[in-house]
């Protein structure tokens, strides 16, 4: 027996960055919003004991409980997909704030090239440069069109930074000054400058100074305590939906936030969404929440899962390339990195912040000539100082023992004598990489899990080798005595941590034939359904995705308000 609740203007599924931004913008405009979040309430007070590497970083305190829901994975269609039984490659956020609680706060804009990647690639290199099965497409929005929304997100979050010398044009400076520079960062800066590259400080959502945002939210400066990634910030210095947009929505009195509410279906009739069906996980009760507009703002996999389980949109078919839901799943190519050993140095590697670091974009996007390389796009190269915590950071020379006396001595010796240059390689989509429903494995409520079909391609192998070579070059210039770099990328493995930058599956574009949503994140096939998040990225750039997720959420919010007045397709 399903309990039916009174109708609301808007129901939001998942209350992280996307849901929080949309809730705050819509309630400010007078709309009544119900936010459904499958996880628990979260508050800054929860993090008083957060400096606990085992509990948070190793045992995944803030992540989704895989015993209830996971996804299945296979490298290609010939393999049997099997469930991701334990965490590895990426981490799924949980609770109010979602992944916006445990992120590092590195807040980059994508490049103008990204939004028009197909057009610009063909213009510069010709059509043949794009491999036949690579499905890159333009985003249906330009950098200039998305710029005001980046600006809005950065002001709300108080991003600390300095201008990217090779980035798109900015309408405003970053709202707060760059983070402090450590000696390690200064070494990177000096080395990359002498190599004629263009270093700049990583734009950071860990506040460099006390800041009050346009909504009147005040937050304290970062203390460089070195517990960001996988942790919640006990100072509220790291921008997080819980300390920024959600209080604004709550303050209007128009935001009804319900935790422990697991949405299972989007309900629809005659091509319009009518609400959602969810289960109260504390009681098991099934509840229908009718609404004029439905907004999906959960993580990439769950946005796709909800659409497929609700039979909305045209599922992607990898053999024909037709259909859109599940298409263009992409990831991030980050293994093309290197570690330098500095025998005569001793760095304060235990100190840091999630977004502390220096970066160059000389090999990102189309900032360099690709005529002589066998890949497209690129990635940033960075030196980050997020805090080397002891369980997970034990740098040793590549060919040395991994346990016993020599291991102990090496790991003690090198922990404060090593620096790594990382790469944030772009991940471009291929015809064979997609998300659909698993035919066998189910979640706690009996709904099919998402099945991921994905592996690295030549594009990724070439790109990773290229960035590893550049990382090596920079470490050499920095004076490293020994450098260990990635040599071969190998296959994609779901059991080794890489990054939580999963994208695609409900992609945006200018053409309903090849995309699922328009540039307001509005479904082409269902006017009153919006699907917001990195699921809308047609490819993943050589950057962390959150700034773009935030910008697209602000644009979606604007679209939803417009739609609430006039209806119809917005683009």
């Amino acid at each position, binding site marked *: 027996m399903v309990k039916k609740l009174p109708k609301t203007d808007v129901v939001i599924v998942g209350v992280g960055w996307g849901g929080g931004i949309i809730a705050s913008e819509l309630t400010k405009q007078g709309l009544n919003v119900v936010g459904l979040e499958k996880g628990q309430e979260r508050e*800054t*007070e929860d*993090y*008083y*004991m957060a*400096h*606990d*590497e*085992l509990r948070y970083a*190793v045992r995944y305190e803030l992540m989704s409980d*895989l*015993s209830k829901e*996971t996804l299945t994975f*296979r490298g290609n269609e010939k393999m*049997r997909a*099997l*469930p*991701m*039984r*334990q965490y590895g490659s990426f981490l799924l956020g949980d609770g109010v704030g979602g992944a916006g609680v445990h992120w590092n706060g590195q807040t980059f804009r994508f490049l103008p090239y990204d939004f028009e990647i197909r057009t610009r690639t063909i213009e510069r290199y010709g059509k043949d440069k794009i491999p036949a099965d690579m499905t890159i497409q333009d985003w249906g929005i330009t950098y200039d069109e998305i710029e005001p929304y980046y600006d809005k997100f950065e002001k709300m979050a108080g991003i600390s930074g300095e201008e990217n010398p090779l980035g798109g044009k900015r309408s405003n400076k970053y709202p707060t000054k760059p983070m*402090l520079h*450590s*000696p390690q960062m200064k070494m990177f800066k000096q080395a990359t400058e002498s190599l004629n590259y263009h270093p700049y400080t990583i734009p950071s959502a860990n506040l460099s100074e006390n800041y009050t945002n346009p909504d*009147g*939210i*005040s*937050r*304290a400066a970062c*203390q*460089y*305590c*070195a517990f960001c990634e996988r942790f919640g910030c006990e*100072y*509220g210095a790291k921008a997080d939906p819980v300390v*920024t947009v959600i*209080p604004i929505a709550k303050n209007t009195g128009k935001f009804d936030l319900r935790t422990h509410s697991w949405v299972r279906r989007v309900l629809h009739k005659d091509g319009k969404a009518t609400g959602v069906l969810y289960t109260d996980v504390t009681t098991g009760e099934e509840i229908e929440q009718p609404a004029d507009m439905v907004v999906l703002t959960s993580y990439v996999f769950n946005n796709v899962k909800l659409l497929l389980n609700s039979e909305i949109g045209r599922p992607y078919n990898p053999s024909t390339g037709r259909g859109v839901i599940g298409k263009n799943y992409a990831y991030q190519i980050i293994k093309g990195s290197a570690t330098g050993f500095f025998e005569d140095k001793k*760095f*304060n590697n235990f*100190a*840091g912040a999630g977004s*502390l670091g220096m970066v160059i974009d000389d090999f990102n996007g189309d900032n360099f000539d690709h005529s002589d390389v066998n890949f497209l796009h690129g990635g940033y190269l960075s030196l980050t100082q997020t805090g080397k*915590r*002891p*369980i997970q950071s*034990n740098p040793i020379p590549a060919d040395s023992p*991994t*346990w*016993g*006396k020599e291991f*102990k*001595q090496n790991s*003690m010796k090198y*922990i*404060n004598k090593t620096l790594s240059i990382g790469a944030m390689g772009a991940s471009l989509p291929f015809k064979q990489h997609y998300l659909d429903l698993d035919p066998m*494995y*189910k979640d706690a409520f009996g709904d099919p899990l998402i099945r991921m079909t994905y592996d690295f391609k030549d594009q990724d192998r070439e790109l990773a080798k290229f960035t590893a070579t550049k990382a090596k070059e920079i470490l050499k210039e920095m004076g490293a005595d020994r450098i260990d770099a990635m040599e071969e990328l190998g296959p*994609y*493995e*779901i*059991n080794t941590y890489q990054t939580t930058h999963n994208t695609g599956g409900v992609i945006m574009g200018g053409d309903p034939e090849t995309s699922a949503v328009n540039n307001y994140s509005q479904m082409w096939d269902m006017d009153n359904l919006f699907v917001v998040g990195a699921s809308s990225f047609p490819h993943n750039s050589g950057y962390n995705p959150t700034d773009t997720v935030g910008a697209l959420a602000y644009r979606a919010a604007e679209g939803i308000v417009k739609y609430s007045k006039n209806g119809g397709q917005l683009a």
Partner: protein
Amino acid sequence: MAEDNHNEEEKLDKDSLSRRKFLRNSGFAVGGLAVGGVLGSVIPWGNEEKEQQQAANETKNFNQALMNFNQVEFQVVEAATERIFPEDDLGPGAKSLGVAFYIDHQLAGSYGFNARDYMNPPFFHGEKTQGYQGRLKRREIFRIGIREMQNYSHEKFEKGFTDLTAEEQDTVLTDFAEDNVNLTTISASGFFNLIRSMTLEGVYSDPLYGGNRNMEGWKMRDYPGDQMNYTKVIESEEFQQIEPRSLRDHM
């Protein structure tokens, strides 16, 4: 000794007082909605006396008893982890850091029962890229793995693992790590990787979990543990030697 402890305790109190003051001051808020910072209200006050009393009562570590292993299993784990992280000139090894107690306690709880892993059937043998696909829980893997290590030690050296020389123990561990041992129920290298990663956890996790005794694991590698701020450290050209702190200093 008792006096030393007392002084240490006083020093700690002083430090944690100034830390509290610092926390209070950094709970910055002007105008609008105050959302940031650990709020003063969550910091318990006036506990200094209680802390001192607690310290005086801590004559035994009641935490050092077994929740999961039997005595023999415990000794095998203690010996194996000591080879993985041995005592040397740099400082204590796994045994005196309490790593085997740490592992025992972890296996008795949600981690040992794989409580937050997806353990639904059906189970199939997968590719390496697909990660762990077994049906056994970590506590079961340990029980089987320890028994197999004992069997292998007897087979190869005609003695139990704990009676082997350090070199012989290393041979057994290497054969497990490199899958030179034929096991049917579990993967030998999978078991080795589990015991290795749990050894590092026991050496370096907060002492609250039963390992890293007296923060000795941290001290050996100049890791300051749980500090509230490094604003003065970040720009320093010199390495900063900082006395470590643990989460207990937050109580």
